[in-house]
């Protein structure tokens, strides 16, 4: 049984998804989704445990040996990403029950859970597979289900934002598949480990370099690196609350993982940084993303949109860590994948609670909520502090490694910039806090505390924010180990 965990990781949500449609009942579908997502989390944790002790797991699908057959290959890097996706998936699914009943038409609810599980399956699949074409397949599964999830939002603008995401996402996916095709034409292989062996022989060819370019643009579209982020703010703003919480914490993270996996494992450290000089492209883009998007976030009046812009800025931090091209920088990137998932998940879930009670997430409408919904707003405050990077939250740990990485390279202006943008984060978080705590409630409805079913997953994430902020030994250890694995590449 335990040797089949890699395939079960993908198959469990994949099979549960159509079952959700067959049961035709919202609550039953929800039960299935919760079950499948928690089983996925169990598998992901088990895999992390296995690679932590036993090294790399290689699983040949249908016993077709790689490089001909499809290989699932789990090392510490993707085990880490699997845990991130599965954790968020497992916490969002119980949260969805109440929230979805309020935000989505009743007859579409089974469809929602089906799409949700497919999305989880796609993201887990991208993370676990060791085959580049398989990456593309799972990318399409996750993207198509994501478009559907966003379009389920009740606000009609959800449709246009989903369509916009579809267009941009398809362009990205097409670029990626072109890149993969070019690699195949040069090497005749689709297996990542095999490619890593074959590529150095054809490094000099223009085709490989063009493939690299296509892949870079494709990944950056999917991970919403400035200026390819335009699909993200609307999609996050108008999607149903649980969808936003899930997507913001996982989809872009998996895209960052794809980028790391292709550029560091498949192409290799040497090729990416010494021949293609990837850092020269990523560093300025990341800096512009961080500064400009933090600035834009300050002026938003819709809190979900504010957080969405903040996400684009935070993605900038992850890319920035990579552009340092050092172990510390890469550790910061991998750590922030996890930490940012925790903080944004908590924040978007808190906003879901607000949406549930007062039907709006405009800053103006949130006046007085500090008194009316103290538990929800306290979650927002802690999540916000984490976003700012206050000590004893996970945000601080990420910032610490990021700034340490910048100083190691001697790039102190970058370090100053990181700190300045933390202040910008303080400003946009503070705007919400001030309205919620220092103004009187003005709406007429009864804004009571959100239901317990929404609060406990939110606070579970908040608690993780604090726990891994106070004791970051394990997460930082895994991130560093993963960074070292990525830097070493395969077979060296």
């Amino acid at each position, binding site marked *: 049984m335990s040797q089949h965990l890699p395939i079960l990781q993908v198959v469990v949500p994949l099979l549960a998804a159509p079952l959700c449609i067959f049961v035709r009942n919202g609550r039953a579908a929800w039960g299935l989704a919760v079950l499948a997502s928690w089983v996925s989390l169990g598998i992901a944790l088990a895999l992390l445990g296995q690679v932590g002790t036993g090294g790399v797991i290689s699983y040949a699908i249908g016993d077709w040996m790689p490089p001909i057959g499809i290989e699932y290959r789990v090392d510490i890097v993707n085990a880490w990403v699997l845990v991130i996706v599965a954790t968020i998936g497992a916490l969002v699914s119980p949260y969805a029950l109440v929230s979805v009943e309020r935000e989505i038409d009743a007859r579409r609810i089974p469809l929602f859970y089906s799409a949700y599980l497919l999305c989880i399956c796609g993201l887990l699949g991208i993370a676990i597979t060791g085959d580049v074409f398989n990456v593309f397949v799972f990318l399409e599964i996750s993207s198509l289900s994501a478009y559907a999830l966003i379009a389920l939002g009740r606000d009609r603008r959800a449709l246009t934002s989903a369509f916009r995401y579809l267009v941009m996402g398809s362009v990205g996916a097409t670029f990626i598949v072109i890149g993969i095709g070019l690699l195949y034409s040069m090497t005749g292989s689709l297996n990542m480990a095999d490619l890593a062996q074959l590529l150095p022989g054809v490094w000099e060819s223009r085709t490989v370099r063009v493939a690299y370019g296509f892949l870079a643009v494709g990944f950056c579209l999917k991970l919403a690196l400035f200026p390819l982020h335009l699909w993200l703010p609307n999609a996050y703003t108008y999607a149903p609350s649980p969808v936003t919480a899930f997507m913001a914490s996982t989809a872009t993270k998996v895209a960052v993982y794809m980028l790391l996996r292709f550029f560091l494992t498949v192409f290799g450290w040497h090729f990416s940084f010494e021949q293609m000089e990837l850092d020269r492209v990523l560093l300025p883009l990341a800096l512009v993303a961080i500064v400009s998007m933090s600035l834009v976030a300050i002026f938003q009046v819709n809190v979900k949109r504010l957080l969405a812009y903040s996400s684009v800025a935070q993605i900038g931090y992850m890319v920035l860590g990579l552009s340092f091209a050092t172990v510390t920088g890469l550790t910061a990137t991998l750590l922030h994948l996890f930490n940012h998932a925790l903080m944004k998940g908590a924040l978007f879930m808190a906003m879901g609670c607000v949406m549930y009670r007062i039907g709006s997430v405009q800053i103006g409408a949130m006046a007085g909520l500090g008194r009316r919904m103290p538990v929800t707003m306290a979650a927002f405050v802690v999540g916000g502090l984490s976003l700012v*990077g*206050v*000590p*004893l939250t996970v945000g*601080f*740990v990420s910032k*610490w490694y990021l*700034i*340490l990485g910048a*100083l*190691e390279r001697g790039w*102190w202006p970058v*370090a*100053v910039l990181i*700190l*300045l943008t*933390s*202040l910008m984060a*303080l400003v946009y978080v*503070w705007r919400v806090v*001030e309205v919620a705590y*220092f103004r009187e409630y003005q709406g007429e409805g009864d804004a009571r505390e959100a239901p317990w079913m929404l609060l406990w997953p939110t606070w579970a994430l908040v608690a993780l924010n604090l726990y891994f*902020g*106070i*004791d*970051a*030994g394990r997460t*930082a*250890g895994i991130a560093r180990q993963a960074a070292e694995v990525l830097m070493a590449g395969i077979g060296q």
Partner: protein
Amino acid sequence: MTTELILSLVLPVVGAALILLLRGNPNAREAASLVTAGALFAVVLRIHGAVRSGAIPEVVLAEPIPGISIALEAEPLGVLFALIASFLWIVTTAYSIGYMRGHHEKNQTRFYLFFAFAIASVMGVAFAGNLFTLFVFYEVLSLTTFPLVTHAGTEKAKRAGRVYLGVLFSTSIVFQLLAIIWVYAMTGTLDFEPGGILRGVVPVPDGVVPVLLGLFVFGIGKAAVMPFHRWLPAAMVAPTPVSALLHAVAVVKAGVFAVLKITVYVFGIDFVSELGASTWLMWIAAATIILGSLVAFTKDNLKARLAYSTVSQLSYVVLGAMLANSWGVIGSGMHIAMHAFGKITLFFCAGAIMVAAHRSEVSQLGGLGRKMPVTFAAFFIGTLSIVGLPPTGGSWSKWFLGLGSLEAGQVGLMVVLMVSSLLSLAYLMEIPLKGFFGKDAEVADHHHGDSAGHEGHGGHDGHEDHYRAPPWSLAAIVTTAAACLALFVYPEPFYRLMAMVVGQ
């Protein structure tokens, strides 16, 4: 001793919980405050005893990032700060009982609650065992004092709160945190070590050290070195006991204490003085001393004048640290203590005048001293201590700071110290002089009319009560004023501790 260290953090938090539990019964609630404050002082005294006999108790509470821990450690300088803060907490609590009731403040439970939290964070700052811990408690202190600053809840208070958090957070995040991570990137440790941790690992000729020191001095916004002093006068919208303890003692002293501690235990004074790394900062501190005094002159509002006087006096401590020699450091540490007692007396008096006579401007104080002789006499003693005249404790710290500047070969700074003493004499002495010898000011007195608020502390009834400070407050004022005098004769405990810091 580690139990006592942990207790010093836990006790105020327990006190806060008690305050919350007893919120229905104001007398019991205040009793809880007083008892916790007394217990905390007793604990700090025990730690003091151990440290005086040469022990350095330490305890690690958590390790958030591998290699970077939240650790407490009691060394002489921290003990000095903790002693002052915990002792003055008792006095201030007594004072607050009179003030808050006499002034009919709202939300008193919240007030005492966050007061207790603030003291817990001050203990954390005092006993921080490394830079990271110091940073954490420094930030917690800003957060826990925010509700106190905005206590009144008015638009003005909110604006002040924004300035307060804005300045303190931006300086600490942009400068201080950068400096901390920089230190870690170079040395791989954040621990406080006698003699510092930078010698030998920092590239000296690059001029890194002066910049790093500057990042710390400006990054510790609570030290109110210009141009980052604006938050301090803004925070004066707080109720007077808050201004008294937090903005004459705990918060601002946490700032200058951190500057001193970092100079001594991270940089090492010998290292700093060999490089001359602090010369530029000496002059910025000197400028703050003079400019702060000059601005104080222009303020008619009593609390605003005291606030700028604080800005000026804080830079004495910073200056002492930047002198980077034994006398300077001793003077610096002594000034933390002496200024605390002097300035808290002045703030207490300002509050008493406000509660009893409803006057807040200096120009309204004429003749008031004849009606409130004890208060104005205390103000006079406090003034002497701030100026640095015998027979008050303030003369000792000025003495050592003067010695320090001569040893550093900076005669110009000696002049600055003298000029600033004259200035502070002029702007502070005006108040008792006016009070005792001035003409009665024409002020439309508005009686509060109800004596109900005074019954709680068994005070006096009717209009005779009008010019009498609440007895609880008066007791506090007399205590701190007496302490100013006592410290002239008996500065020994603080001197011993500082001598241990510089290894004498």
